[in-house]
């Protein structure tokens, strides 16, 4: 069995199993914790509307915060959108999903995907440098932050190296690229990458809690 066969077969299956088990485990593990009912008289009805609103209001900082964290948000958006574009609109990636979902969709030219991936990778490095240099970031960062950065950046770097033919051969490159993605999937449930789920839960929680009170969150 070659490295690529391993990457495309058993490694992928193991990674997906861990990915699914871990995510469900962690979500259920929190949802099954006790929750006390808030007995206070709500100021207004429809807390769930506030919860839904809460999902969106924090997508961009409130005006007084923009000068302080606007740049950080932009970097964040570049990383998230870049990840999304490359993942969904890269032809090889689309074909990967098409194999699962059974239909194909429009994709972007390889050159565009490469450019987006380069920009995203640069943004990831900016984020890393910021984490290493900014005193606040440095203090609050732990292993998870750096591990998350690594498993997120690795697929970009290996993917770029594969498209740009920087490996001894494409086959090994593709295998390493795939393995780096499986590493991401395996790490996903155990670190802060889980924020792709928690952001919904957390924003909804705060949104609905403050909707019944009024005020702002």
């Amino acid at each position, binding site marked *: 069995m070659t490295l690529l066969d391993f990457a495309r077969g058993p490694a992928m299956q193991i990674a997906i199993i861990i990915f699914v088990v871990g995510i469900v485990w*962690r979500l259920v593990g929190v949802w099954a914790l006790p929750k006390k009912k808030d007995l206070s008289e709500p100021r207004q009805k429809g807390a769930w509307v506030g919860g839904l609103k809460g999902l969106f209001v924090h997508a961009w*900082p409130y005006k007084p915060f923009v000068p302080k964290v606007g740049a950080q948000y932009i970097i964040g958006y570049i990383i998230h959108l870049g990840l999304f574009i490359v993942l969904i609109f890269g032809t090889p990636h689309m074909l990967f999903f098409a194999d699962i979902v059974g239909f194909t969709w429009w994709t972007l030219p390889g050159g565009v995907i490469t450019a987006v991936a380069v920009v995203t990778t640069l943004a990831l490095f900016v984020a890393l440098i910021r984490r290493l240099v900014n005193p606040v*970031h440095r203090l609050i960062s732990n292993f998870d932050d750096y591990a998350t950065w690594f498993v997120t950046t690795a697929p970009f770097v290996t993917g770029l190296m594969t498209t740009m033919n920087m490996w001894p051969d494409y086959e090994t490159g593709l295998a390493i690229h795939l393995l780096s993605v499986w590493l991401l999937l395996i790490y996903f449930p155990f670190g802060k990458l889980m924020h792709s789920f928690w952001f919904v839960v957390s924003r909804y929680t705060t949104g609905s809690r403050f909707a019944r009170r009024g005020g702002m969150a």
Partner: protein
Amino acid sequence: MSDTSVTEIELDYESKRLSVRKPEERFDVQGDMSDDERVEKAMVNFAKDFGRVAATYMEACIHCGACAHACPFYEASGDPRHTPIWKLEPFKQAYKREAGPLAFMYKTLNLKPKVTVDELKDWQELLYDTCTLCGRCTLICPMSIDIATLVGMARHGMFHAGLVPHELYTVTEKAQKEGSPLGATPSVFEDRIEWMGDEHEVEMNVNEDQADVLVLMSSIEIQKYPESMAATAKILNHMGKSWTFRTDGYEATNFGMLSGNTGWQKDMSMKVISTAEKIGAKVVILPECGHAYQAMRWQGANMYGKPLPFEVQHISEFLASAVESGDLKLKTVNKSVAFHDPCQVSRRGGATPAPRKVLEALGVELREAESGGNLNFCCGGGGGVITIHRADTLRYKIMANKFRQLDATGAEMMVTSCSNCRQNFDESGEKLNWGKDMNSLLELVAENLVEEGKR
């Protein structure tokens, strides 16, 4: 613990706030437990709060550090340790190790070591001295994490581990024993009501058996701003309400909540609740006090264990509904006003529109400060911080920022509806030569009643 070298203002430890002098010798550790016992106690009381909501928040943090930029303490100090989420580190660590879905992994592999007593001691400053529970960090958080609520929870463990800052512990204990944190015992309260009644020639209702409205007062008002009592009485009399002060349930502040003792918080709330039940009150009016609103309006029912049998209103809400319904007619005040929103009433309480309605009825020109209203910058004195002397350095710095923002509005008059904010403004204003007074919304209304409306 705090670094005093950063201040430009000379510290005056002798000044008296909330009648707590700077202690000769600090006792920031209470009781004579062993270190292990302290950690155990902290864990026990941390663990009680690890429910779904707290868990969600602690899982969600992505360590982006944005919260630092919303925090008045970080903005004033630039100290990364004042990053709001960092203040929760031991609490988070305990959660991950003891209660999270992956707890057994963290525990078996010791990825998150047990919290130590030294860590807890180090975090006392972060959980008490540098957090007013103002909740501004939630606004900036991309994950909407309610850090203030979590800090409130973390204080439970700290209290039971006997790790509360000296002054805050002292006032809390006093409140629990005497019924008031500042020596406003029932007899002192009664005396001062009488004094104010005489001074302002207002009829005071004390200890009525039955009344529709139970009026609470905060110790700060009883001791430092007693005019509030007269103002409230004047307005309620003017409206012809059936109301009363009660010496068995008058203290609105709740230091049990601020210091982190849920048992005492419940005792303090229950005093008011049972008094209100006894006299058949339909409404309980909370005075101009921020955290009192949080304690009774939003946590009262949860302490009581069922919905409250009466309505709870902050005085600004009461006034707003009175002017809206036309029960209260006010003279026009031809002044420009800047309003300082108390965090617990506005942002975290939801009563933000109320004072604005009242100010509109007063016909003033309201000038909102930069980052005002719900986005208001905290005065830096809430959450019990004002009692702690070693927190003064930063508190003044925060206040200096606050003064700049309010001065920038060019308003002639400064108004707020929290006596704790007010005393912080007054005390700091003197220290920093602000040259302005912070006024009470309640008193401003009482001074401008249209008399012919009297029935």
